[in-house]
């Protein structure tokens, strides 16, 4: 298992509004309100997969955590460093705000190319805010490397990466030669928690901050100008209200049957 040569793995991380709190879209611009944010939970699986690839491969393997986002988004990279990533890259530029997946993948691809040769770029299944799952395939297309996406399990053997992937009717075993883009589901592993040692070590790790100019990307290729989709309306759905609650007195099953029959769905 693993690669006999050192591998360089990029884990892409996103800083997203915490789903444990109420999340909002502002009614003027129809953009996500980005307070109370955290490293996207689904990206923890990407970081874990990256660390496992490093640990199963030759000494000298490295994991780089990369994020694109506003100033605070560096916290997503810091969490990845605490988990064990070696270095961080934070692409930040006011022009990027409002980018759709197409524009975001453009910035990420430029940042990945700037970061130098890689063996694997790993993402989570989707972001937990926009949830489109589009970015991994768009990166593979832009970087001209194979894509292994929605992986439920991952195996690296030499320079061949192999995954299992489920669809409704079938499950696939897919493989590709490195370098490749990989996206992992929450079935792929169990993300580690940063421990004391990891938290302390992270303080000495460096995060490189890059702007669009550093990447050679112009402002009209990102943000709303570089996007091809626009949200034109957003409406908060009325919260569901709970109804009748009964306590089982030995006959609640009968009440349940009555209730179901009254719904006329049979």
């Amino acid at each position, binding site marked *: 298992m693993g690669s006999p040569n050192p591998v360089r793995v990029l884990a892409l991380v996103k800083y997203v509004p915490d789903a*444990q709190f109420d999340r909002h879209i502002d009614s003027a611009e129809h953009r996500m309100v980005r307070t109370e944010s955290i490293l996207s939970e689904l990206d923890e699986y990407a970081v874990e997969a990256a660390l496992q690839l490093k640990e199963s491969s030759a000494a000298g393997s490295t994991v780089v955590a990369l994020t694109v986002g506003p100033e605070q988004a560096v916290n997503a990279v810091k969490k990845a460093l605490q988990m064990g990533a070696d270095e961080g890259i934070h692409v930040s530029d006011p022009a990027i705000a409002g980018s759709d997946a197409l524009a975001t993948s453009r910035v990420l691809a430029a940042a990945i190319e700037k970061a130098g040769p890689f063996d694997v770029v790993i993402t989570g299944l989707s972001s937990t805010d926009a949830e489109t799952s*589009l970015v991994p395939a768009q990166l593979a*297309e832009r970087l001209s490397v194979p894509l292994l996406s929605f992986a439920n399990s991952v195996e690296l053997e030499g320079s061949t990466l192999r995954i299992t992937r489920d669809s*409704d*009717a079938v499950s696939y075993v897919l493989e*590709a030669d490195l370098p490749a883009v990989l996206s992992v589901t929450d079935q792929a592993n169990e993300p580690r928690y940063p421990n004391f040692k990891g938290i302390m070590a992270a303080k000495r790790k460096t995060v490189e901050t890059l702007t669009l100019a550093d990447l050679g990307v112009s402002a009209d290729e990102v943000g709303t100008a570089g996007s091809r989709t626009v949200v034109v309306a957003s409406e908060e759905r009325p919260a569901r209200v709970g109804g009748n609650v009964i*306590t089982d007195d030995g006959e609640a*099953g009968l009440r349940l049957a009555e209730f179901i029959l009254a719904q006329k*769905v*049979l």
Partner: protein
Amino acid sequence: MAFSLVYLDSISSPLSGASLELIAAGRRLGDPVVVSAQPVSDESVAELGAAGVSGVVVPENAGTEAHTNFLTFETQLLAIALSETEASGVVLPNSLNGKEIAARLGVKLNAGVVTDAVDIAEDGTVTKSVLAGAYTTQARVTEGPLIVTLKANSVEYTAPAAAEEPDLLEIPVEDPAPGARVVEVREKAVSGRPDLTAARIVVSGGRGVDGDFTPVEDLADALGAAVGASRAAVDAGWINHDLQVGQTGKTVAPQLYIAAGISGAIQHKAGMQTSRVIVAVNDDPDSPIFEIADLGIVGDLKNVLPQAAAELRKRND
């Protein structure tokens, strides 16, 4: 009227409800042309015509496995079909494969992609639900074709007034992109129960079933319902991941959703809170699932579910 493209993974005879819905959505954007990487029989071409499809595009040598790369071939096929037809939009299923092809196509054509659509208007406005169902948004593309993946059971199909006689066009497709290789494809066992995402009733079990899904399955069978599960039940290995409902599982919106032994975590609610009616059975009165349940039953599912199933069977006789 301009053309629209409708991508179908496979074409059954008679056409599946899912295929008809995609065609119905395509009809809103233009004269629908079906694109498939699989061979299409004469019988299917006629059925597609009856559904209002004006053309069918397949690759030369469809189905001969000449290509082994995963999904890059399908992307290339659609990209060529799009440039040939100058279609105003592409409708794909909202499956993992559909989203992956849509994503790639977006980059190839520098076009806008909208996933998880629940509605498409004739002017190209797409409706979807975001933030775990907390908001409904409408999006459009700013220029170029619209690429959209449509959720199942979102759009209603009605037969067109007149049938078409679609031409079958075979186009040469080469697969230029470096792709992933398919090493193995395993068919999954079919359960005999209704499909989770299409079922009118879903009965789901969580950690509270404590290793035994029998009460959940038994009630589901008494109702002709699909079985679902929380991630805790899936992670414990009690039930297959295919049946997980929630953020990282299936999104369901049945007429009736019965949650048994499920606490109602935000990630679970993300997959079921747009159900028409929700029932919760949970032995903890403070469980958050009760906040969204139309009927809440505080009790042990091992007593409540079998009693309900028995009563329903009795009433049915």
